[in-house]
């Protein structure tokens, strides 16, 4: 399977702390995206990083991509209770091949 794998599977932190989650994948990619899913809801796109990029920022989000290690990380700074959700990495390997990881469940304790 080309599915990405997030690590850790679950993460619990205090409000105000930073949260880091990682994604590893198996094959070469065109781009990698991160999505958030609140409980019982659909997924929401957060950020996209292309294979020729190494780092990208969006507000409190920072994404890195290391294609040599086939891995990506998502950093959420100054976390808030509203950041509690599951986070998925999605890799694009071909024209329409998008593969979802199994997700990291983040809990931010107020």
């Amino acid at each position, binding site marked *: 399977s080309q599915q990405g794998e997030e690590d850790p599977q679950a993460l619990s932190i205090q409000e105000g702390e930073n949260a880091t989650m990682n994604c590893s994948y198996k094959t070469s990619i065109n781009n990698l995206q991160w999505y958030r899913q609140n409980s019982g809801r*659909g997924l929401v796109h957060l950020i996209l990083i292309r294979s020729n990029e190494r780092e990208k920022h969006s507000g409190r989000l920072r994404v890195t991509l290391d294609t040599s290690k086939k891995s990506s990380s998502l950093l959420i700074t100054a976390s808030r209770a509203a950041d509690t959700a599951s986070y998925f990495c999605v890799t694009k390997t071909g024209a329409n091949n998008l593969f979802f990881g199994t997700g990291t469940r983040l809990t931010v304790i107020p």
Partner: protein
Amino acid sequence: NAGVTQTPKFRVLKTGQSMTLLCAQDMNHEYMYWYRQDPGMGLRLIHYSVGEGTTAKGEVPDGYNVSRLKKQNFLLGLESAAPSQTSVYFCASSPTGGSGANVLTFGAGSRLTVL
């Protein structure tokens, strides 16, 4: 602006029954997708469409059929429901695909239980 709307939100079926899930998007997106989400397995692609009148198989297409008669609608059908099809189904759309970015907009999901 509704985005992606899925109906119904919940459905309970008996084994062997058939049903259709409807997905509608108002963003004029070319690409539409149906995924299923099962615990511990992430989302898996069932079928997708790259434009009106086209459909293609994804990772787990068996037991499902789809149609895209109108650009804004993508229907997912279960011909003879099985307990293994108990899942949460998500529809998504994107303005581009192919060499583009495939940034997805998701619906809220449809929870299907097959008894």
